[in-house]
């Protein structure tokens, strides 16, 4: 890797080399999970804390499995069990956990920028963004790229058509950034109500008509429709109408090229953005994505633990405390 990583905030911070190195490392980790004994000593003695302020099944579990298969000590904290429910601030929670000296904090939060914000105050803990608001979800996109590389003939020059709630999607943002670095195309398909302003700044194609977007697509990447969030604020009138306009069904899949594959970052709403027969079809790569998610998270943990091992200065807060104790000692 061109330079060691201390944190993984997003695809935006990574060079093309760094992205490809992580994908390559991930590829080599796929095999480990298929062995009868799924264990390697790579991260022995390392502590990883999964700090999840938002619900997650696959991301949190795959970080946990990734850490454990590499022999790290993994602790899971969800918002409901943490002190935040007692009113502790985000910063205090972060500083408290960092004071227990983990190597890595894996963080998911509904606020965009949470990882960058905490990193300013926790200089000795590596932070991995497991999804922050509508900002970035880098490990998901690295996972998708590994899947494209190994199960869909690569990503360079391909057209990835992302369909659905782009406005609230951190996965879409991360793909748009990755596409610019790695040379694939992103085509966005959504009603105007689900597109954020100035999305064209990423050099992507924006289409409102799903049927017209099908020919020429190499990947149909369906986003989960967060129904609880959207019907309230008039982003679409009903699930029925959404499915009719933007749902992926067998007929639509037939209109795309023969080699076009289907992906989804999960969790799926069957019958909303994706019909069951499509989700379960031979062209679906959805479960490959899940498997690769573990491998990519192994790669990211390995890359970050390698870097964080070199850092051993006390934090500013600890330094202040040490100075205060010393001063007190002198007074006594």
């Amino acid at each position: 890797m061109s330079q060691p990583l201390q944190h993984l905030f997003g695809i935006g911070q990574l060079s093309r080399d760094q992205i490809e190195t992580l994908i390559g490392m991930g590829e080599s980790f796929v095999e480990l999970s298929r062995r009868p004994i799924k264990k390697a000593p790579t991260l022995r003695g390392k502590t990883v804390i999964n700090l999840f302020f938002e619900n997650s099944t696959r991301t949190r579990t795959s970080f946990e499995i990734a850490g454990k298969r590499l022999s790290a000590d993994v602790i899971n904290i969800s918002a409901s069990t943490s002190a935040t429910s007692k009113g502790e601030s985000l910063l205090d929670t972060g500083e408290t956990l960092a004071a227990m000296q983990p190597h890595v904090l894996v963080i998911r939060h509904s606020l965009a920028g949470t990882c960058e914000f905490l990193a300013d105050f926790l200089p000795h803990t590596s932070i991995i963004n497991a999804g922050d608001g509508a900002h970035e979800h880098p490990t998901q996109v690295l996972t998708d790229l590994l899947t494209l590389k190994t199960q869909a003939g690569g990503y360079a020059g391909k057209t990835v058509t992302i369909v659905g709630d782009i406005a609230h999607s951190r996965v879409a943002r991360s793909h748009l950034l990755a596409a610019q670095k790695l040379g694939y195309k992103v085509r966005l398909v959504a009603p105007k109500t689900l597109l954020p302003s100035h999305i064209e700044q990423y050099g992507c194609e924006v289409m409102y008509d799903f049927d017209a977007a099908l020919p020429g697509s190499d990947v149909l990447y369906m986003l989960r429709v967060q129904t609880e969030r959207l019907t309230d604020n008039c982003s679409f009138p009903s699930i029925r109408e959404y499915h009719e306009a933007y749902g992926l069904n067998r007929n639509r899949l037939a209109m795309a090229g023969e080699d076009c594959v289907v992906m989804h970052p999960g969790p799926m709403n069957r019958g909303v953005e994706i019909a069951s027969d499509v989700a379960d079809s031979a062209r679906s790569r959805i479960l490959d994505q899940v498997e690769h998610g573990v491998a990519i998270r192994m790669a990211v943990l390995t890359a970050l633990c390698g870097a964080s091992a070199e850092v051993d200065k006390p934090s500013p807060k600890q330094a202040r405390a040490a100075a205060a104790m010393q001063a007190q000692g002198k007074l006594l």
Partner: protein
Amino acid sequence: MTTLLIKGGRVIDPANGLDEVADVLIAEGRVAAIGSGKGKTEAEIDASGMIVCPGLIDMHVHLREPGQEWKEDIESGSRAAVAGGVTSMCCMPNTQPRLDHAGVLRQVIERARQVGLCDVHPIGAVSRNLDGKELTEMRELVRAGAVAFSDDGRPIWHSGVMRKALEYASTFGFLVIQHAEDLQLTGGGCINEGRISTQLGVNGMPDVGEDDMISRDIMLAKLADANYHVAHISTRGAVDLVRRAQAEGLKVTAEAAPHHFALTEEEVLGYNADAKMSPPLRTEEDRLAVIEGLRDGTISVIASDHAPHHEDDKRCGLSCAAFGIVGLESMLPVSLDLERGGVLGMPELIATMTSNPASLLKLDAGTLSEGAVADVCIFNPDEKWTLDRNALFSKSRNTPWHGREMTGRVLHTIKGGRHVFGKGEILV
């Protein structure tokens, strides 16, 4: 009362069209003469190479007292004011309790008098508790010292209430100031909606959320034949609307805050909560439109929108952070860029912070006329210094200009003939 001579400065008094090197003689707390001072005075300030102008008026300040004194109080706000050359300021009514009863206004004014550094003129609430439903007793509030009315921070979105507020206020010649923000469009947003909000993945506040409310208000102001003032104007569309209303002869005015003509939404990159305020920093196009509005006089006032917040309210991530930045101590140096950039001449620039707000609010301030209360600001327009948020006189430190070089520095502030600020220190 002592006599004080301010010697050899470039004296600029926009109200009297004065711009010449002269001495200013102050006696009995008032301006006694401007000319060539020969007699003996008890004190002297050498102002050669400096600009001597009326003490500045900042018509948009949040003092936080009563109710949020950990952020700012009248004393700390007054210290920040005179450190910024400001000798009169208008405080917004979103305190706790609100400035919606005469007693609260009198208390604020009395406290400011005790502090004795800077005149405080309250902006009364338009509606009780800023709820946008029932009007306050505006005549009573004016008798208690209110100089205008606003529900600042809580825009009056109900068109019927806004119409009545404008009609009632204008019946008695009162000014209504609107924080123009259509919360139906901006609610949940934290920065300008556009390129940067999409990059950061945060909810935006679209420019039309400012424009649509101003557009409606102008129509209502026309209907009511009212005096209507747009606070902290920030968009190209809004400047155009005000310009057209003025061309039509309506009594519509506007103020701009320094951050809106000095900074853009780019400041927020990296999730910088100290660049978060409402209205938000906009695009370069909007910034240039605000500057053009100042150049052609559409925007006649510069006001800081000084909005102190405790670090705890800012250090919680961009989306959760409070809106607002402190501004009293950076208003003049940041605004001087307009003079250096050729947008406004020095007298015209000074007018936006002295005679213009004074005439808008009918304040007996903002001039060096003979016999006027001797409120004076003396600054060096060329002195370079670095703004350190820890060195501010305000209790709060939420400024986007921390660590930046400023050009132009207030060296002395005279309030009612008393030398209250000099050489970086409060003198009383």
